[in-house]
């Protein structure tokens, strides 16, 4: 039935993307081990990248894999390894009574509402937007050209603002992840002061020692 209406390759690409996305997303919320969840997240992101490719978003598909699967998930894995893998998720312990049931009901109602809304709507299609100069979305290198034109002309101010956002995020992350020395226990203060003078701290966690070593190297 679909064969007469839709092209077989397109349907197969959609089915593959849907399979990747659903499997990966379910894996993220089902897996007990956070590392397995992160790997499932990569699977879901690859599925989203396939869906992007199938819809003339070639550049975004590449960015999806490079930035999300390549950088963000690696950051997740780094933090998981840094903090130590804890499998202390007790599925049978429920701190809030009925939380899981209520969450499932709320999500199902919302999804059903959204899908019903979409099923009863008629989207305007086939109209060529003025944002692309009245031409249709291009694929391949043309997509990069169109996206670049849009980012660096229409949305130039937003693009510049993202530069500031990223700088703020980097500074914030460094400040947050840095160890606060005055926040230590009181009997540690003298020891910390001595360390700043160049001595060695006899006790403390390993990452603290690494941090101070790198600071000494820098100075």
């Amino acid at each position, binding site marked *: 039935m679909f064969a007469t209406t839709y092209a077989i390759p397109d349907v197969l690409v959609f089915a593959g993307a849907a399979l990747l996305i659903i499997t990966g997303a379910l894996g993220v919320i089902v897996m007990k081990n956070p590392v397995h*969840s992160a790997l499932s997240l990569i699977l879901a992101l690859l599925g989203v990248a396939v869906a992007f490719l199938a*819809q003339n978003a070639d550049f975004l598909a590449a960015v*999806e894999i490079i930035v999300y699967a390549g*950088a963000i998930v690696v950051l997740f894995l780094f933090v998981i390894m840094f903090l130590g893998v804890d499998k202390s998720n007790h599925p049978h312990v429920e701190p809030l009574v009925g*939380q899981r049931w209520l969450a499932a009901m709320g999500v199902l109602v919302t999804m059903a509402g959204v899908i019903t809304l979409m099923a009863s709507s008629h989207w305007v299609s086939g109209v060529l937007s003025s*944002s692309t100069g009245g031409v249709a979305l291009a694929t391949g290198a043309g997509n990069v050209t169109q996206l670049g034109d849009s980012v660096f002309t229409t949305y130039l101010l937003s693009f510049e603002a993202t530069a500031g956002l*990223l700088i703020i995020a980097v500074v914030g992350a460094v400040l947050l992840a840095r160890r606060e020395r005055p926040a230590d226990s009181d009997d540690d203060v003298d020891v910390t002061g001595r360390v700043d003078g160049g001595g060695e701290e006899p006790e403390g966690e390993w990452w603290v020692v690494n941090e101070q070593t790198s600071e000494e190297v820098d100075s």
Partner: protein
Amino acid sequence: MTVPASWYLVLAAVLFGIGAFGVLTRRSALIMFMCIELMLNAVNLTFVTFARTMSDIGGQTTVFFVMVVAAAEVTVGLGIVVAVFRRRESTSVDELSELQG
């Protein structure tokens, strides 16, 4: 004819629902961040689908900016998780209850 937009929209809705369920039920802050990423990707998929349907590159541009914001959010969020773990030796959000009255 290519696959209709509604298929991708339903897929995005399902992905968003799975992510929302994960945020509501999982207790590890790291898993909750991953589920937020899933929800962001569901919205990105919707944007790209509408960009194709309406032949408007603005949808893809929005996805570009959403990705930038998501990267910044993950960076700061994971910094907060690390900072909390240093004090509490745990990433479970149930144990962070000092602010309750």
